[in-house]
């Protein structure tokens, strides 16, 4: 058979020489390699204390955005849910009542907005699909949890805090 690339290396099937059959030189070589590694840089990021730096295009947890007056941008159009390849987003729309104009920017808003972080693949399609600049992917990632239910993030988890108001932990 003709070789497809010139990178193929034939297997050396010559019988081993006496020195090779003693194995001890080869063992010593291997031991030297492992010993060298004692002094090499450790590739560990001790996670809770140190955090790895993310690239600028990192896509992490979602946030629901507000406009400059602190009103929710989301109109529950459902484009994010449609574009989601993992079907992680569920929402329920509701009509804005008179007197709620300071809460919601437009006449319709999301009464319920849930993202299942175990289903989500963090592709960012929801961010691209959103016509209202309402959903963004941040640079944090979902912390570990004990229950599957806890990974379904509701509106209270996703919505960015009101300006001048601290988010509950």
């Amino acid at each position: 058979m003709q070789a497809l690339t010139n990178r193929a290396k034939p297997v050396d099937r010559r019988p081993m020489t006496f020195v090779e059959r003693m194995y001890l030189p080869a063992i010593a070589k291997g031991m030297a390699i492992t010993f060298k590694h004692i002094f090499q840089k450790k590739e560990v990021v001790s996670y809770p204390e140190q955090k790895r730096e993310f690239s600028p295009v990192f896509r992490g947890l979602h946030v629901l955005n507000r406009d400059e007056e602190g009103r929710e941008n989301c109109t529950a159009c459902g484009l994010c849910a449609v574009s989601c390849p993992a079907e992680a987003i569920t929402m329920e729309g509701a009509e804005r009542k008179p007197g709620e104009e300071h809460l919601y920017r437009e006449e319709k808003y999301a009464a319920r907005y849930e993202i299942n972080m175990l289903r989500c693949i963090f592709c960012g399609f929801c961010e691209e699909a959103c016509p209202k600049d309402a959903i963004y992917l941040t640079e944090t990632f979902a912390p570990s949890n004990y229950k599957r239910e806890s990974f379904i993030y509701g509106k209270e988890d996703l919505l960015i805090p009101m300006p001048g108001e601290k988010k509950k932990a």
Partner: protein
Amino acid sequence: MTIDWVLILEKILLISGVLVISLVVAMYSTWGERKVAAIMQDRLGPNRAGWIGLLQPLADGGKLFFKEEIIPGTSNRFLFILGPSLAMMVACMTSAVIPWGDTLIIAGHTVSLQIADINIGMLYIFGVVSLGVYGIMLGGWASNNKYSLLASVRAASQIISYELAMGLSLIALVMLTGTLSVKEIVEQQRHGFWNVVYQPLGFILFLICSFAECNRSPFDLPEAENELNGGYHLEYSSMKLGFYLFAEYINMFISSAVMASLYFGGYSFPYMDSLGLDHNLLTILGTVVLFGKTICFIFFFMWVRWTIPRFRYDQLMRLGWNMMIPLALANMLLTGAAILWKQGH
């Protein structure tokens, strides 16, 4: 005849001391093993429990104690419990003939830092080490599990095969030193060269065989934790499993100490008698040196484990019978010839 109470008290204290030290060293060998593995793989290793992870062995021990104890219904209950107990007991017994130091003079009373200076110390070591296979054999057989049984048969045949070469390599040493007492061998090295200078081949053979005897990598195929389903202690849980694993670490400690004593001068170190130090101080220094040598050997055991891949079973047997035993015999012959040649002149 009156009973020498001071001697009995002294021996009891010494036995407890040696036992405690070997348990503590074995405990911290588990920590050391993980640390060595980690740094050789560019990781950090256990570092959460206590300062640089020093409380990790305690956490592991506590975990093992509180785990559920399962004894299979079809097992032979008595032998099942006897297995790990025997393994542990045998592992602790060898330390009796190792001279942990020279003598201490306390209030005019000479205290030897060796539990029993018997004149057949080497034979005792061999006898006890070969008993160790019973713990493995009984455990594997009493589990009433075919995998455990196979693993224990593998372990037994491996240990027995390598014991032969080990014994033969030591015979050359005995021929050279002319004594079976470990203390005397150490004393001879104190005044002359270390035995490794006279017996380099014998030392390498002994080293390789002690890897096999301790079921350590590259000869750890009775256990082969990443390929087989557990080995002879497959059915064991909780502290019984802990005993088996612990016994292996004690064995490693003891065989390191034996190697240090037989081939690397034990508690003696070069120029120790020309320092002009106080006798007691020198003894303590010697003990520290012995522990240093032992720890070096333990590190070597770990270093090898994280470097060399495991043998295949037929390779293991071929190495044992076709290489080690002939080499040990040749070493014996060479030593004998050298001794004869020396006597002739």
